[in-house]
C-alpha cells in the first residue's frame, strides 16, 4: 500500500477525482492548503499600497492505493491536474504500514 499526497491547483480537483474514479480508486481526502514553490504569488493593490500574496492557495489530496494501482493513479493525477504551466503541483508517494476500515475491522488492501 502506498499513500499518494498530491498538491494540485484548486480548479483541477474535480478532474482529478473523476480520473481516479475511472481507474477504480474508491476514496480520497481533500484539504485546502497554502504554500509556495516555483510559482510566484500575486500582488494586491489597496490605495497604492501593494501587498505580495506569496502563499498560493492549493488543494492537497491524500489517496491510499494498493501497490498494483500506484502507477496508474500517478498517471491519472498527472494527466488530469496538468495545465503545462508553473504551479501545477507535486505528487509525493509514501509507504503505508497498514490500513483499517473502522466499521468492519477489515485490514490491508481489503479496507481501501
Amino acid at each position, binding site marked *: 500500500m502506498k499513500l499518494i499526497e498530491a498538491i494540485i491547483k484548486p480548479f483541477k480537483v474535480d478532474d482529478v477525482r473523476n480520473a481516479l474514479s475511472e481507474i477504480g480508486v474508491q476514496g480520497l481526502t481533500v484539504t485546502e492548503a497554502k504554500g509556495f514553490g516555483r510559482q510566484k504569488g500575486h500582488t*494586491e*493593490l*489597496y*490605495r*497604492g*499600497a501593494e*501587498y505580495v*500574496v506569496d502563499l498560493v492557495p492549493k488543494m492537497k489530496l491524500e489517496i491510499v492505493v494498493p501497490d498494483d494501482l500506484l502507477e496508474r493513479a500517478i498517471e491519472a493525477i498527472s494527466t488530469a491536474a496538468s495545465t503545462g504551466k508553473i504551479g501545477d503541483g507535486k505528487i509525493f508517494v509514501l509507504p503505508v504500514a497498514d490500513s483499517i476500515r473502522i466499521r468492519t475491522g477489515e485490514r490491508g488492501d481489503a479496507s481501501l
Partner: protein
Amino acid sequence: MNPARLRFVAPIVGLLALTTARAAWAEEDVLSAGDTAWMLTSSALVLLMTLPGLALFYGGLVRSKNILSVLMQCLISAGLMGVLWIIAGYSLAFGEGNAFIGDLSMLGLSGITPDSLSGTIPTYVFVMFQGMFAIITPALMIGAFAERMRFGPYLLFIAIWLFAVYIPLAHMVWGGGYIGASVGALDFAGGLVVHMSSGYSALVLAMMLGPRRGYGKEPMPPHSLPLAVIGTALLWVGWFGFNAGSELAADGTAGLAFLTTNTAAATCVLVWVAIEWLHRGKPTVLGGATAAVAGLVAITPACAFVSPLGSIGVGAGAAVICYLAVTVLKPAAGYDDSLDVFGVHGIGGTWGAIATGLFIADFALPEGMTWGSQLAAQLQSVVITAIFAPTVTAVIVFAMRAAFGDLRVSHEQEFEGLDLAEHSETAYTS
C-alpha cells in the same frame, strides 16, 4: 440665504432677549413649510452619512478583528455628540458670544420654543441639522487612529475636541465669528469646519499615537470592500443633505449645490480611476470609492459658489491632489493614517476651500470682493484652520496622556483585535 448661517440665529437671540421687539422680527421671519420639510429631510440624510455610511466605509476598510470597534466608535459619536450638542454645543457654536466662540445663553436650548424661527425654518430643525454635523465630524477622525486606540480615551477625546476645536471653528465660520465675518472666507457646508478640522486633527492624533504594530512590514488589507463600497454609496446619498441642506431652504441655490455636489463626485471618480489605471495598471474598486469621498469633500465648501462646469474643475483637482496625498505623500512621510482621513478629508478639504476661490462664479462673489481678494480670504482661512485645529488637538492629546497614560491598547490586545479586547465581542463566527 447661506453664507452666514448666523443670519438666522442672530434674530432669534434678539427675539428671545427682547420680547418687546417680537412684532418687528415676526414680520421678517415667516415659516416656510417647503423649506422646513427639506431641512427635516436633510437632517436625516446627514445622520445617514454617519450611521451607517461612515461606519460601513471605515468598518470595511479595517481588518476583520476590528470592525466592531469602528462601528461602535461611530455609534457612540451619535450618542455622545447628540447629547452634548443639545446641552451646550449649539449655544456655544451659534450663540452671539464673541468673534471666536458663542455663549451659554441657550444652554439646554433654553428660550427656544416650537414657535422659534431661524429664517424660514423652526429653530429646532436648525439645531438638529447642525447637530448632525457635530456627530459626523468627530467620527470622521476615527479612520486615522483605527485599530489601536482605547475606547475610553476615544470618548473623552471627542468630547473635549467638540468644544475645543469644532465649536470654535463652527462659530468662527458660520456663527458670525472671525473667519466668516472678518476674514470674509466662504465655506458653504464645511470644508474648513468639518473636513479640514477633522483631517488635520486626525493626522496629529495618529502621529502621536504611533503606527499600528507591524505597519509597513505586514499586510493590512481591507477585510470587506463590499461593506466599504456600500458605505461610500450611503455617504454620497447623504451628502446631498449635507451640501444642498446647508442652504437652509428649498430654493435655486440648494438646487445648484445638489448639482455641483454630484458633478464633482462623478468627475473625481472618473479622473481618479483613470489615473490609477494608467499609473498602476488596474482600476481598483477601493480607488473609485476613495475618489467619490474625496470629490464630495472637495465640493463641500464650494458647492453653492461655483458653476456646474466649475464643479468639474473642483472634482478633477481633488482626484489629482488626493491621489498624490494617499499614494505618494503618506508612504513617503511614513505616518500611519490607517484609513487616509488626512489624505482625503484634510487635503481634500484644503483643496476645496482654495478651489472655492479659484473657481468662484460671478454670481457668488460677495459685494466688495474681487476674484483675487476672495482667493486671498480663502487662503487665509485655510492657514488659520490648518494651524488652529492640529495645535489644539496636540494640546488635548498631551494633557490626556499626562492624565491617563497610554491611549493605546496593549500589544497583546492589538494583536487579538479591538473587538474582543475592548468590547468582548467578535463580528464573524465560523
